[in-house]
């Protein structure tokens, strides 16, 4: 394999590395420097201001509010999505009926259907839910009226107390199916006899879930949490399309939107880059914390 080795290494790496360096690595590196300037994009010079952007960020109520929304999403969306995902996956794969350790009938079609919302482009999901949530004419409120639950009607996207949770619900709606598939695959690899033994012991479904399935799926759940956490921190398309101005009373503005507004609406490129750096650090922190908090010895089976 040595013949012509260096020629092919150069030939095969040159284009990918150039592209990657120009459009990915160099912007990432520049972002750190630009975050230390008060650059507005119109001048060639980028006036160095040290940590001023970060100081301003620390006392910017708009930023903190956006961060708070991300934090709420970061807790709620993974929690609900993973709980539902585990529940449905275990129903579909283990111990669905007494005395058996097989899943329910029709597990395949269920998985296939649950997954469908996940593949839709975020913009399509957003426009669709804009209609579903429409307070006067939308199908959700009119369905609530029709079944006599008119008191549950809400201005889903217009009420500052509700809007963020309406958006979180969409994130759960799109996510659950993906994690059902993911957890199902992991559950399939758990030996059947463990479940048979638990069933003989009279273990309730909840006990089986809590004491057997969950410990054996710890790593998968960890990865799922990080993935959903990143999605919660990076949430943008859904929010920007549904509520481009940050929602009623800024009740749904998220950090990514705040960054976008700072950069491309206000021309504060230095400030926006500082937001980007903070967002990046938060993402890495979240991933590290998830691994750190749930570190235990892996169970082999």
């Amino acid at each position, binding site marked *: 394999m040595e013949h012509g080795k260096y020629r092919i290494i150069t030939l095969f790496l040159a284009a990918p590395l150039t592209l990657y360096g*120009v459009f*990915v690595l160099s912007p*990432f590196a520049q972002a750190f420097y630009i975050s230390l300037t008060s650059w507005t994009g119109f001048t060639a010079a980028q006036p160095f201001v040290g940590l001023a952007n970060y100081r301003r960020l620390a006392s910017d109520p708009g930023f903190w509010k956006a961060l708070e929304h991300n934090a709420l999403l970061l807790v709620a969306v993974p929690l609900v999505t993973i709980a539902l995902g585990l529940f449905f996956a275990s129903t579909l794969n283990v111990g669905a009926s007494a*005395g058996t350790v097989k899943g329910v009938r029709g597990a395949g079609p269920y998985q296939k259907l649950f997954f469908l919302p996940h593949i839709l482009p975020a913009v399509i999901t957003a*426009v669709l839910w804009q209609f579903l949530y429409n307070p006067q004419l939308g199908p959700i409120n009119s369905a609530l009226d029709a079944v006599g639950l008119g008191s549950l009607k809400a201005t889903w996207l217009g009420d500052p107390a509700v809007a963020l949770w309406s958006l979180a619900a969409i994130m759960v709606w799109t996510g659950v199916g993906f994690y059902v598939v993911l957890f199902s695959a992991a559950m399939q690899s758990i030996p059947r006899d463990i479940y048979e033994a638990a069933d003989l012991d*009279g273990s309730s479904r909840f006990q089986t879930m809590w004491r057997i399935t969950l410990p054996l799926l710890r790593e998968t759940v960890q990865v799922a949490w990080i993935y959903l956490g990143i999605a919660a921190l990076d949430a943008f398309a859904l929010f920007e399309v549904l509520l481009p101005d940050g929602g009623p009373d800024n009740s749904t503005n998220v950090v990514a939107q705040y960054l976008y507004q700072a950069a*491309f609406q206000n021309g504060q490129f230095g400030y926006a880059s500082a937001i980007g750096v903070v967002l990046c650090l938060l993402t890495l922190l979240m991933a590290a914390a998830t691994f750190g908090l749930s570190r235990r*010895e892996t*169970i082999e089976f």
Partner: protein
Amino acid sequence: MTDTTTPPRSAGPDTGPRSDSPGDSPSGAGSGGRPRPGGRLSRRLGTGATQGFLGVWALLAAVPLLWALVSAFKTNNELFASPWKLPATWHFDNFVRAWTKADIGEYFLNTVVVVVGALALTMLLGSMAAYVLARFRFPGNRVVYYAFVAGMTFPVFLALVPLFFVVKNLNLLSSYPGLILVYTAYALPFTVFFLTGFFRTLPTSVAEAAVIDGCSQEGVFFRIMLPMAKPGLVSVAIFNFLGMWNQYLLPLVLNSDQHKYLLSQGLAALAVQQGYANDWSALFAGLVIAALPVVALYLALAKKVQTGLSVGLLK
């Protein structure tokens, strides 16, 4: 099974049929300590309930999508007067209007050009880089590999501002090549990471024999290794295709020319504009058109799409 952290309880196969050991907490013993006559019945009821939950979620997943599909065939009046009724006549002309008047056709073709171009380039460059990194030892191999891997850990938002100016300085704003190159560059980290792992698992004997027989290194790659890597290439191609088709942030920032709009931008803009033009049924038809490629891909290759998207979790 080696359970290392929690004391073995009724879970292990070795604890026997009864689990009312002294260590059992009161609640644990009460809820399912031993088989009781009523246990089977309550479990059967429980099964009914879980079946019910499955059914409810199935409806929650399906109904909004079906509702959008049906709404695409309605008139504006029907859409708002009776959101849950079927249309009196099925208006296929909504799709025609969406494609021509609402410019969905234009956006669709723009998207096809960008996504197909970027996907082809990503797969070519990504597999080339991955192959070299997986197969050859050379100084700097690890540095290059980890440089690519590092790209997966940073959020795109960090790069957004400088990226805009990089593309601007190259005179590539609002252009197909600009979008194609940027899409490709941001798809490379994961593609290289995944395919490097994949190429490492492939046997080398065929490739070595071919080199001895005088086949060039490029020939080995294109004629022997790429066909062998097909399963990995398919997974990562599906993953990239869906990601690119659904992309919104990059075109929003880099592509402001309305005639170059991609579907995601076009639909978002239409959702605002139709409020004035009052042609909501065309907007729904547009949604259906835009969703069609990914939904068709999914319905045709559900399992492959599911694994294709799951590989993304390796990140």
